[in-house]
């Protein structure tokens, strides 16, 4: 009975959504001419990014520079998720000592372990490559950071003894977060706006270009990698049911 009601409700919602999106034609050019004096926001980004920011990937320019405050907020959300999960699943000291920490792990045969040992540096390098080249190719801090975290995941589940150095993680996380903000404050001092960019360095489509944008994205990459590894580490350490 409840299911029937829900399905009727869903049909109504679906109808309204379809009705709305029929009026929004797919594939229509809503950007308009990008060379107008006052283009739309998207048009402005497309026509000015290469000149004013010297960044080839427009998405990176938007994420890090035009809408940099969003990205700061996004990094904060991940940070808060790590903090929140830690506090939700927190165990007091005495509980911690009593519990045998046994992580979820693959059947640890030699093949798995040596495979992980070979794969881990490759994955980590790939991730770092992705976030260093964020301003040139698709990808950036978030994608690269996630890839690095996947590498750590592989190590965590294939080596029982592999422990992330908690102290070092805290340092990297804090320093990456702080360097994001301080790069922003650099802009506040030199350009009088928070996150203001200094794009004079380098030329388009070379590794050193885009001013502070690649630096910020690298900081984001480190922070995301450590935060996601932290989340996985906390979740993997839960004592499973018998």
């Amino acid at each position, binding site marked *: 009975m409840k299911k029937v009601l829900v399905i009727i409700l869903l049909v109504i919602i679906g109808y309204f959504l379809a009705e709305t999106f029929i009026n929004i034609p*797919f594939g229509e050019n809503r950007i308009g*001419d990008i060379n107008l004096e006052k283009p739309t926001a998207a048009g402005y980004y497309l026509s000015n990014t290469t000149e004013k920011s010297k960044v080839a990937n427009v998405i990176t320019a938007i994420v890090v520079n035009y809408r940099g405050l969003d990205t700061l907020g996004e990094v904060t959300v991940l940070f808060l998720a790590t903090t929140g999960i830690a506090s939700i699943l927190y165990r007091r000291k005495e509980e911690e000592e009593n519990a045998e920490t046994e992580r979820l792990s693959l059947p640890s045969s030699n093949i798995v372990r040596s495979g992980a040992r070979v794969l881990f540096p490759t994955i980590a390098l790939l991730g770092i490559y992705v976030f260093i080249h964020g301003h040139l190719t698709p990808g950036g801090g978030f994608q690269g950071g996630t890839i690095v975290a996947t590498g750590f995941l592989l190590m965590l589940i294939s080596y029982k003894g592999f422990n992330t150095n908690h102290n070092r993680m805290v340092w990297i996380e804090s320093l990456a977060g702080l360097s994001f903000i301080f790069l922003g404050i650099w802009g506040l001092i030199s350009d009088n706006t928070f996150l203001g960019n200094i794009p004079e360095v380098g030329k388009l489509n070379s590794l050193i270009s885009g001013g502070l944008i690649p630096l910020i994205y690298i900081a984001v990459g480190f922070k995301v990698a450590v935060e996601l590894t932290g989340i996985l580490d906390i979740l993997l350490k839960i004592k499973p049911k018998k």
Partner: protein
Amino acid sequence: MQEEFNEIFLKYHEIITLGVYGTAIGLMLIGLYAILTKKNLVKIVIGLSIFDAGIHLLFVGIGYVKGGTAPIFSPGYENAGNRMVDPVPQALVLTAIVIGFAVTAVALSLVIRLYKHHNTAKIDQIKSLKW
């Protein structure tokens, strides 16, 4: 391969429209169905992530421009500014995906804690609060 698909997108426009919008709205409805009818907390979180996936697809869908290329001025595309897809929804959906992951992770950790206390992950057996 992307260029080939662009030509096809021009040719069979209606079908593609239906494909993208229809799939997106379909995903949202399926997710909503799971949220509303399922009793298992893990299933509800799965529904939530499917619902989010639908919205993300809608975002990318409305940013698409017929015949456009990806908004990256890589070598050879320096003057392609006028035939690129809309970069703004893509930037927004990037943010939304990461935030969605954070929310899912928090939700799942709550599920684990609820399971520890009640030894069940079903709403109707977790009785202390009204649902």
